[in-house]
């Protein structure tokens, strides 16, 4: 039974050490090479550097010559409805559009406007577009909106129908949908409002200025008045909280500060004012 030993038995121990070291070296080099390969992200990114040429060069480029100019044909007239539909189709599905917002109901405004309908006093045939202080009527109206860029008509109020607002494109906007006018300039706010990051749901107090001052009055015993966090959203219009002509919130008197537990003297107020870092930074910065 003792024939010649198999080859692998005849190799001395040193030999196996060399083989093992070689194997580990190969494996190690293989691993290092694997990490050296570009990552998937790098592979996906095209050689974009070539394509992103600075746009400056293009401006100097003259328009393509030798192209026959087409005869200027009169474009077909679009009805307002067709225009609206075309706009909606153009902007559908572009990012987070207002159409993606969960449906909600807007609390109507017209029934809470004291001076509506405006045709009680206004005659749509006579329009006074002059910019002047309003001394005969609308005397309590404080106008602090727009920074001097606009006046009543065709900025927000319609000339052709005083009972309606008007958009930048000249389309009429109902008073109950006044957010469509505000959202033209305050588009980010309108988007927040549609999705819930701005504004309030209708609830116990639907006008911010009506919220009572004392704690006892803030107790709502008629639970039907309280708003819900679920079910269909009923949101307040922009003008439900903001005065359209002077929209920024005015400072209010805050409720009383908290008290310490009875029987304990309150701590004497120490208004510790720490200087800002640029005020107490004493290191001279030498400019080279």
């Amino acid at each position, binding site marked *: 039974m003792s024939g010649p030993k198999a080859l692998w038995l005849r190799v001395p121990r040193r030999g196996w050490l060399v083989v093992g070291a070689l194997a580990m070296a190969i494996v190690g080099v293989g691993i290092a090479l694997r990490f050296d390969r570009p990552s998937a992200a790098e592979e996906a990114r095209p050689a974009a550097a070539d394509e992103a040429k600075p746009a400056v060069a293009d401006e100097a480029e003259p328009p393509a010559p030798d192209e026959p100019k087409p005869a200027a044909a009169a474009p077909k007239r679009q009805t307002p409805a067709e225009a609206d539909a075309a706009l909606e189709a153009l902007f559908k599905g572009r990012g987070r559009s207002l159409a993606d917002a969960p449906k909600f109901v807007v609390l109507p405004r017209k029934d809470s406007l004291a001076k509506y309908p405006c045709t009680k006093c206004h005659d749509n045939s006579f329009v006074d577009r002059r910019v002047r202080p309003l001394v005969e009527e609308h005397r309590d109206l404080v106008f602090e909106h727009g920074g001097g860029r606009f006046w009543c008509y065709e900025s927000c109020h319609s000339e052709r129908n005083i009972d309606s607002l008007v958009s930048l494109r000249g389309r009429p906007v109902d008073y109950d949908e006044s957010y469509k006018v505000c959202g033209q300039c305050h588009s980010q706010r309108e988007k927040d409002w549609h999705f819930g990051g701005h504004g309030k749901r209708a609830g116990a107090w639907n006008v911010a200025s009506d919220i009572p001052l004392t704690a006892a009055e803030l107790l709502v015993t008629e639970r039907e008045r309280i708003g819900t966090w679920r079910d269909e959203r009923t949101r307040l219009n922009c003008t439900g909280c903001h005065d359209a002509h002077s929209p920024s919130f005015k400072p209010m008197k805050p409720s009383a500060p908290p008290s*310490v*537990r009875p029987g304990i003297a*309150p701590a004497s107020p*120490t208004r510790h004012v720490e200087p800002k870092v640029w005020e107490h930074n004493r290191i001279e910065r030498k400019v080279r």
Partner: protein
Amino acid sequence: MTATLARFVLGGSGLLFRGGRLYWSWIAVLWVAILVGGAFYARQVTEGLIVTGMTDQVSWGAYIANFTYLVGVAAAAVMLVIPAYVFHRDDIKHVVLIGEGAAVAAVIMAMLFVVVDLGRPDRLWHMIPLLGRFNFPSSLLAWDVFVLNGYLLLNLAIPFYILFAHYRGREPRERTYFPWVLVSIAWAISIHTVTAFLFSANAGRPFWHTAVLGPRFLASAFASGPALILLSLQVIERVTPFRVRSAVIDFLALVVTVALQINLFLVGVEMFTEFYAATEENHAATYLYFGLHGAWRLVPWIWTAIALNVVAVTVLTIHPLRRRRWLLNGACALAIVGVWIEKGMGLIIPGFVPTPLGEILEYAPTSGELFVSLGIWAVGALVFTLLTKVAIAVELGQLRDPGAAGGVREGTRS
């Protein structure tokens, strides 16, 4: 057996009513303090905790401060148990029962301080497992209740077994009690570690949320507890025929010395970590040591405590000074008071100032709190007195089973 047990209990109880003028005047003083404290506690139970100085901002005060300190004193009995039973030092074995009596008194005081701190002590049964709901092992307070009760049982059972054996004129069987002694050694470390975890578990309170709190607790416990035992042993020597070998006093003095050195080192470590990179996490430590935005009430307390500890450790470290008994006693007294301030008010209150929302409201205990605290300390002193009275009588051979061979000897005045 039960007859002997009954005789032991009755004989021991009867012994408690035999004493001289000094004994009875001491008991009377204690009872006055207890009853006054009880009256103030009754007022607290009626009106609520509003009679204390605690607020939502500082919701733990003098009661929990005393509780923390006393758990440390209770743990310190282990410093006598280890040399007595593990290293078989007979001189310390002679006094170990006194140490365990002190531990029992301290644990009872600690538990009483927790009870008087509760807003609804009538609902204490809610903590009993199965009957109520015991939030173990999640709540550190549940852990604390568990380990304190276990420690109390251990420190009642083991000395009871040993004393009962001595009462019958026999030696207790080492095989019976030694495993439990080992358990009680580990348990003693655990009660104070769990109490430290009670505080360091609060991630929202950076003053306590430090790993060094456990070691600090143990170091200060082993500084103050043996100091108290040391002083009590000398008082016992003065008023009873019980003799304590001076080697025991020297050993305890050495324990106090080393523990106090370690404690001061840990305080220094804590101060460095808090103040080197002055982040806002150290605002509580700033309040404690230097005052914060005009709130300074704790500053004199903590520096007094540090001064007392430094003086004490200096006296104790210098060997010739430690050898003089009056200097030793003075240093121990300073250490007891210093550790009490540093671990009690100097640890609990800064954990609450400023609040997690940055508000600073200081705390001062009311007179009601002080009287209730004094009453509980008096309860502890009473328990200690009664337990040691019986233990000493048994150890001196004055209380013996009349049914046994030796018969009873008329006890001398103790």
